[in-house]
């Protein structure tokens, strides 16, 4: 099914905001930019929802400045996808150490030493038990 799109005029009619106000919210990052290029872009239902959410805040008497700080608090901090490659060393079954590839390349001897000591500690401990 094709995704429904709206022009800025239609968005204004649906939400009751003027064109000027919608442009301001987009400029301030309160509403996502339109899809497509520049001012001639179009909007989706998600834009309608964003504007209606702003409206519900305003109906509770919350102004834009207060809303921006509220939204910042509410918004979960984005988790950045990790680009690091980790090398996994199993010390003993159930215990492992992850070392970044960068670190491994940089300090190979130190890493090997850490693994060796870790193994000896883990084995020793296991043996004591």
């Amino acid at each position, binding site marked *: 099914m094709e995704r429904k799109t709206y022009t*800025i005029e239609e968005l204004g009619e649906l939400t009751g*905001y*003027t*064109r*000027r*106000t919608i*442009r*301001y*919210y987009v*400029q*301030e990052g309160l509403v996502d930019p339109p899809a497509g*290029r*520049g*001012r*001639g872009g179009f909007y989706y239902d998600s834009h309608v929802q964003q504007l209606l959410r*702003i409206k519900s805040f*305003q109906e509770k008497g919350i*102004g*834009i*400045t207060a809303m921006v700080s509220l939204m910042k608090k509410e918004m979960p901090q984005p988790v950045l996808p990790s680009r690091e490659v980790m090398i996994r060393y199993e010390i003993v079954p159930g215990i492992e150490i992850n070392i970044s590839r960068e670190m491994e390349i940089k300090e190979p001897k130190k890493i090997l030493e850490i693994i060796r000591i870790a193994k000896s500690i883990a084995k020793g401990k296991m043996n004591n038990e």
Partner: protein
Amino acid sequence: MNDSSQAEGILIQSNGEVVPLVGVDVQADIAGRGAKVKISQQFKNTEKKPIEAVYKFPLPENAAVCGFRALIDSRIVEGKIEEKEKAFELYDKALADGHEAQLMDEERPNIFTLSVGNIKPGGSVIIEITYITLLDSYNSEVRFFLPTTISPRFTPASQKDENGIPVSALINPPFAFAVPYGLAININIHNRKSIASIESPTHTINTKFRDDLATVTFSTDKAVMDRDFVLTITYEKGFTNRAYISREKDETFLQIDFTPDDPPEEVQANYLPKGREIVFVIDCSGSMQGDSIEEAKKALEILVKALNTDMIFNIYRFGNAFDHLYKSSRPYNEKSVKEALKYLSKTDASMNGTQILPPLADIYKEDPADGFRRDIILITDGEISNEDEVIELVQRHNNTTALSAVGIGNGPNEFLIRGVTRSAGGASELIAPWERIEPKVLSLFRKVLAGRISNLKIDCGGDIDQAPAYPVAFIRQATSIFAKIRRNDCSDKSVTVNQYNRQGTILRKWIINLEKINEETMPTSKLWAREKIRDLEEGSGLPEGTKQRQRIDGKKQKTVTDISRQYGVISRSTSFIGIENNAYTENKASGTVLLVVPTCVTQGWHDMRSIPRFSRTDVPQYSIRQRADSHIDVHESYAIPTFLRREASDNKPMAPFNKAARGIRNMLSHIRKSDPLLDILSQQKLGGGFNINKRICEILQISDSKLRSIADGMQVKNGADRLEILTTAIILAFLELKFADRRDEWEAVVSKSRSLLNVQVENPNPMVDGNPLDSWAERFAKEILGASQMA
């Protein structure tokens, strides 16, 4: 300070941003009080993509902005007026379609937002904005005022967003410590033979005289846009009542320039109450830090000393919170003055925000005592964004309390100062930091004491639409009243201005002959439209004391829009829009880059960029006070440090920059000496009498021992101080003769001296050398002045 800093929540930008505004050029023509001003702003796109430049800038709040056009290459795009949201739609759509478009919105009567969209890469656009206005005048002096910077406005947390957009975003531009663009001016003052002097208390200027014109420019190519530009023109003759009738298209308009004189005593007694309560309100918010708070304290000290012993008074100071000297006003006496001065000495601008409503509400919560009329005198830079709320509050109480205001600083909020005093039936003065405070404050005080002349109606025998509907006038100050004639049944010979009392009977009337004009430069229709729009926007078209101010509703807004469109004058409900249909694919394809022009932080704001008093080299300077009918071209400029202008000082002035022109030495020697008038006034005692000291004896050219021996021979009543009575009589006679042209500065101050003396000179009049005291004093003063002239 680092690249950027934060002050009161206002981000000060670092330098190095791309600024598309290249420069601002102002061309003005002034004739009498009328001024036509064209402002040209040049924008250039140095980016590789099309840009949208957005620039917030100030204009005088009473300007009738009636022209807007864009010069793009060799093409001219004439702007037209449209309803505000409709104009934005047209602009936005034009940009989306890749056209070049320009939009100008009025955010406040003194703050405008210009958007110049889709300037091509490498392209430039010049925006020309034209306004007409009638300049403020008092006696024979007019004041040309051009704001150049917007000072950051404080927005109270309670202030509602406007159409979902925070107010601070509408009126506060981004700020920078320095901007790459500057201001150039070229001001032609017509009929030069009528001009006595031209001065600027804010900038160094050059004045050239040619044919019928005096032309003023800055002495440097460009001035930094960090402070308002003020030009004071003094004419040979003061303004008198004038009335004009003009026919424009199919309509007829009246313009009455009304400059009332002192009312006859019997009339004055009718409308001036016996008791006066004066409440001073001083702004101690953060924006007043630095120069402004010192100016304000000095103004207030002068005013406190000028009060009369039959008055009651109080002082409030405010910022985020407020406090007061007394819970309620107290009589003016030695004890209260001492307490007031002590309170003032502990006052500084450390009260953060600018919450102006709570102290005013506290004053208004009780009516003035029976038989008392209350005047509030507000001293502020007015840097707030909730002007409408303040205007509404003071208007509700204007039948019991008038509010007058002194605007301080390099960029005070003129809309607040003028708007609030207009609504509260008060007087206002804007004082640039380089102007002498005393005369301004004392002349305001004189207006406050003399009271407003309100409930004025034009009568020309027919049906008219008057704007402002309820004008407020003050003696010797020109106030313009306009009218559109609805039916052509009015006299074209003369017009009557009637002043009514609250019962609807006529108190005074002025009959003024009508002069026919055919004015194309300053069309009366546009000036009428500006006033009419203001009446509707501010709700000031309502009688005094109207409890329910009608906020601008849909119907009124439509009326404003209709008037604005019909007469081509911008309003808060309309915008100027210009579109050049020259879409090119690059615009549409790549979108535009938004570049917001930063505004230079006002000099002295928050104590930032405040200038050290003694080491500066870029001080604003007076032009040479030059008679306009002289044939000497004046090019020389020189620096006069602040301390020389402000107060008596024995310090030597800075050396002139250039070779001195004729008259400079005289002027400098005049400035170097202390001002004898202020020296006299500063010796006034609370009861109105005068102290005798060495300086007074020097001015009056009489020795202390001689004065005492004359006084010893006098008979006075009630065991009064003979010496004090004698000195007071001489000083009053001396002021009348020597300082008649500066009456506004001393008249209000010495009213208590007159009262003191009147008690004594009523029968029996004390005799001096066989003559009554008053006539002896007058002869004595004449002798002193005669002797000094001979010398």
